[in-house]
């Protein structure tokens, strides 16, 4: 099956070039030149990944991302300007899974897309894998987590992060290790990706996200999932 990518970018030249590049790599591409078109296209077609520019006429990328996240956990890669690092954080906070700065390197773009798609589709874990921590139950084979019996609205990245921490409870993971495992970066990457995803994950699984009891920060080292007393 060919993966279909929704490419949201207002400059037609950039759009045409990226489409050629992605089609070269064997992906199907749906184009959108504005935020509104992007939302319409997303409803019309089955989309496996969204490549989303932030600066768009009308509805901007942050708003598009927020609206997509209401109904979907589809992988979203933001295209951000490099001179505005705060856009990166803002984009991740509204639910993007990863980001790439403009202008981008073609190899890097393809690598990021591949990593996101592999993660979101690969057969993950042995069937029947189920991990329980108090009121949280992680169902590895179903790709979802429950809190008090209700399905948590996690994106795929958030779920992967939770699953990875849960299968290795009490072990401390550095940001770089989490980037390697969850995002598939073999080298480099941005620790803020991990930090913002941890924050979003906490806001869904923790009773009080400001004082987490399940997903703990180990200062200077990274994060761990605390399985004690549960």
């Amino acid at each position, binding site marked *: 099956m060919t993966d279909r990518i929704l490419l949201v970018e207002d400059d037609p030249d950039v759009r045409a070039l990226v489409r050629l590049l992605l089609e070269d790599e064997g992906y199907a591409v749906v184009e959108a030149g504005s935020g509104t078109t992007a939302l319409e296209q997303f409803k019309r077609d089955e989309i496996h990944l969204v490549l989303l520019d932030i*600066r768009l006429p009308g509805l901007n990328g942050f708003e598009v991302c927020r609206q997509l996240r209401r109904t979907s956990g589809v992988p979203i890669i933001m295209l951000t300007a490099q001179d505005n690092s705060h856009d990166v954080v803002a984009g991740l906070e509204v639910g993007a899974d990863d980001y790439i700065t*403009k202008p*981008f390197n073609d190899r890097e773009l393809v690598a990021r897309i591949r990593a996101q798609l592999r993660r979101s589709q690969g057969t993950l874990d042995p069937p029947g894998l189920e991990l329980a921590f108090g009121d949280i139950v992680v169902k590895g084979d179903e790709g979802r987590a429950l809190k008090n019996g209700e399905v948590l609205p996690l994106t795929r990245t958030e779920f992967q992060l939770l699953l990875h921490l849960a299968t290795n409870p009490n072990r401390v993971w550095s940001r770089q290790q989490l980037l390697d495992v969850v995002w598939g970066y073999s080298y480099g990457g941005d620790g803020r990706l991990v930090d913002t995803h941890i924050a979003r994950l906490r806001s869904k699984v923790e009773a009080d996200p400001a004082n987490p009891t399940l997903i703990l920060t180990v200062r200077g080292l990274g994060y761990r999932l605390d399985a004690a007393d549960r």
Partner: protein
Amino acid sequence: MKVLPHGLRARSTVAFAMLALALSASLSLATYELARSYLLDQRTSFGTRQVMVNALVSKGLVAASDADGSDLLDSLRNGSNARAVLRVQGVWYSVVVDLSEASLPPGFVDAVDKNGSARQVTTVGGAPYLVIGIQLPGLRSAYFEFVPLAEYEGTLNTLGTVLIAAASVTTVGGALGGWRASRRVLRPLGQVAEAATAMSSGDLSRRLTVGPDPDLEPVANSFNEMASSLQQRIERELRFTADVSHELRTPITAMAAAIGLARRADLPDRAAFAVDVLDAQVEHLRRLTLELLEISRIDAGVADLRLEEADIEDLVGRALVAAKVPAEVLRSSLGSDLVHHVDPIRFERVLANLLENAARYGGGATAVHLWREGGDLVVVVDDDGPGVDPGDRTAIFGRFNRGSAEQPEDRPKGSGLGLALVDEHVKLHAGSVAVGVSPRGGARFIVRIPRI
């Protein structure tokens, strides 16, 4: 020679004091003079009347006394306590011992002989006297009496003291009034200065509150107008900067994407070389626009510092990974004191630029030290390159100033803004950056960020 102090307030204080002094001094002088002549008049007319009576008594005594006058003196002494001197037919008699004809002012006896009577103020033995002389008609005699003025002088002295005290109080009062008045007048100026300081440190929306004062209102209004137009201009410039950023980013993105696409095809050598050149130039253009925008944002005073309690070793570690520098170069003596208030993004940019600089000119960073001095965080980046000439050590932080270092040929050209940006980012943290010599003779960059 400068006699007057410089400050407006000091000058007005002195001026008010001088005015008060001049006014009170002239008033006091006039009062003193008036009082003096009035008192003297009073004393004179009173004394004259007294002396006339005494003289008449003396006349009677002289007429009744015998020729040698020895009993005359006795009668005079018994009859009154007046300080009198008598000349009876050329012979002088003194009623009191300390006053005699010698105590009379020179020429006074002649004046009495000539005019029948005379009076004059004189001093005998340091004490002031009004001396009055009267001829005793038909007896070839004259009566002289010394009326003491010491009491009157005492009164005048007291008055003088009181007046001087009053003048001093008035002068001090004037100075105080001047100081207060000038403070009132200068207070709006202080507000203007405060607003201007606030504006120059980035608070462009700061305005003066316009009071109902008709003298101050125009000043405040024109200051506020100036502030508004300044703010508009800066905002326009910023919008322009943001627009330029967007406008340049799109073509650079398109070019980079086009180059990426071209590289995927099997190109003949010449075309591949051309694409390589394009690639390097687009990369240079990308960095240049990025750093120009970064620095212009700081210049415009809108670079927001987002301070966080950050784990410094973690931030430095990330920067090392991103710059592909082996993690072993990090030598931290922070221990458990890892947290410092920094803007993580800017801090990482500082590290990235220093590591990039070390890679470009010093063969790569050989050590990154972290330590504390007082509460300050010190970050040191060492390399083993040729070091920085002492004469260049300030200049290399200037814009597009690469010092006298050789440009390496195997790396893309630097933007010439990297170290200038380091300087700006560090200054935003109220810190400092300097360059010295590393232990093995290369360059050592020292960044110091104070604790907030």
